[in-house]
C-alpha cells in the first residue's frame, strides 16, 4: 500500500489560528472573571506578599504579610540596625506609633545592607527593637539600648538576606511604604513626584487625618 498523501494546503497555519482563537477565548473569559492585578511596591499596586520569620517580643515565628491585614492602614518600615539614619528613625517611629497606633499597623522589615560594617543578626534586631543591652547597633559602634526613642512593640521581620527588600525595590534605609487595609500601596517614599516634599510623618497626617 502506498503512503497516503497529505493535504495540498498546509494546515498548520489554520491550526495555529485555531489554537490562538481558543486561547484568546479562554484568556478573555479568565480576565473577565478575575482581572489580573498589578503586584508591586508602587502606589496603586497590590503589595507583594511574603512569608518570613518575625519577632514580636517573644520568639521568632513565621509571619505572612497578608495574614496581618486588619481594618487599619499598614506602615512598612525598612530599617538596617547598623544604619545611622535608622538609628534616628527609631525615635520617629516611636512617636508615630504613639500617635497613630489605633489607625495604623506598624511592621518593620529589618534588612542588612551590603555596606562594610553592616553586620546584623537576629540578636541585634531583637535588641534594636526592644532597646536592650547589645553592643553592635550603629555599625557596631553603639549599644542598642541607647537607640533614640522608646522600645518598639510591633513586629520586626527578618530580611537580613534582603529577599523582601529586593522584591519591594527598596533603594536604601530608612524607607517607608504605606498600605491601605486591603494591601494596596497608597504611599511610597520613592515616588516623591506624587507627593512632593512629603515625609512619612506628613503622609500619615494626610492619610489618617
Amino acid at each position, binding site marked *: 500500500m502506498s503512503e497516503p498523501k497529505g493535504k495540498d494546503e*498546509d494546515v498548520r497555519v*489554520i491550526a495555529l489560528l485555531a489554537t490562538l482563537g481558543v*486561547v484568546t477565548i479562554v484568556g478573555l473569559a479568565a480576565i473577565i472573571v478575575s482581572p489580573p492585578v498589578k503586584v508591586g511596591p508602587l502606589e496603586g499596586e497590590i503589595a507583594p506578599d511574603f512569608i518570613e520569620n518575625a519577632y514580636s517580643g517573644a520568639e521568632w515565628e513565621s509571619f505572612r504579610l497578608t495574614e496581618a491585614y486588619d481594618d487599619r492602614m499598614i506602615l512598612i518600615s525598612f530599617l538596617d540596625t547598623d544604619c545611622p539614619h535608622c538609628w534616628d528613625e527609631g525615635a520617629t517611629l516611636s512617636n508615630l506609633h504613639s500617635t497613630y497606633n489605633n489607625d495604623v499597623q506598624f511592621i518593620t522589615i529589618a534588612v542588612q545592607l551590603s555596606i562594610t560594617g553592616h553586620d546584623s543578626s537576629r540578636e541585634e534586631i531583637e535588641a534594636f527593637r526592644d532597646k536592650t543591652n547589645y553592643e553592635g547597633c550603629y555599625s557596631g559602634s553603639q549599644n542598642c539600648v541607647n537607640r533614640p526613642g522608646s522600645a518598639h512593640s510591633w513586629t520586626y521581620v527578618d530580611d537580613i538576606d534582603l529577599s523582601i527588600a529586593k522584591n519591594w525595590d527598596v533603594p536604601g534605609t530608612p524607607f517607608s511604604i504605606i498600605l491601605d487595609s486591603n494591601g494596596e500601596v497608597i504611599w511610597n517614599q520613592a515616588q516623591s513626584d506624587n507627593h512632593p516634599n512629603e515625609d512619612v510623618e506628613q503622609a500619615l497626617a494626610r492619610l489618617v487625618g
Partner: protein
Amino acid sequence: MMASALADPKLLLFIAGLLASTYVLSTSRSKAGVEGTVAALNGSLLFATVGLASAVWTWIIHNQLVMGDATEFCASEGIVQCGSVIGDPRYNNLFGVPWGVVGALAFTALLFLVLSIRMDVHAKWAESYTNYAWYAGLAGIPFLLYLVGVEAFAVHHICPFCTISHLSLVGFLGSVWLLKGRRENKNWY
C-alpha cells in the same frame, strides 16, 4: 473538608474532562489504521484542552488570592485546597510569572502541535510534530515533579485544580506515546 473540596462542581467538571479524554484515548487501542490514530489524536487534544483550561483556572484563583477574595474558589482549611498552594508567595510563580500562566502557555504549544497533526494526519511533518509534542511534554515533567514536591513537602496541601493540570500532562504524554507506537508499528494509517 476534603470531601467538600472534592465535591466542587467546577472540579467535577474537570474530572469529567479527564475521564472523557481517557475514554477517547482508550478507544484508539482497539482501532486499526488511521481510525485509531485519529482517536489517539482526539484523546491528546482533549487532554491538552483540559490542561489549558485547568491552568487558566489556577491563574484565576491566583488573581483572586492576590486580591484577598478567594472564598469562592478555595476552602481556607484542609489538606485538599488551593489557597495555601496557589496563594503561597514563595512557590506560586516562576520568576514572577504565575504557574497558571506558565501552564497555559505550555498547553497552548502542545495543543497547537496535536491539532496540526489531527488536521492532516498524512502530512510529511506529522511524524516530526509527534516527536516535538513528545519532547515538549517531557520537558514539563521536571516542573510537574517540582510542584508536586512543593505541595507534598513544603506547603503540605494539595490543590486539586493543579493536580488536574498535572494529570492532563501525564495523559497527554500517554496519548503521544501511543501515537509514537502507532508510527513505529506501521499502524499510523
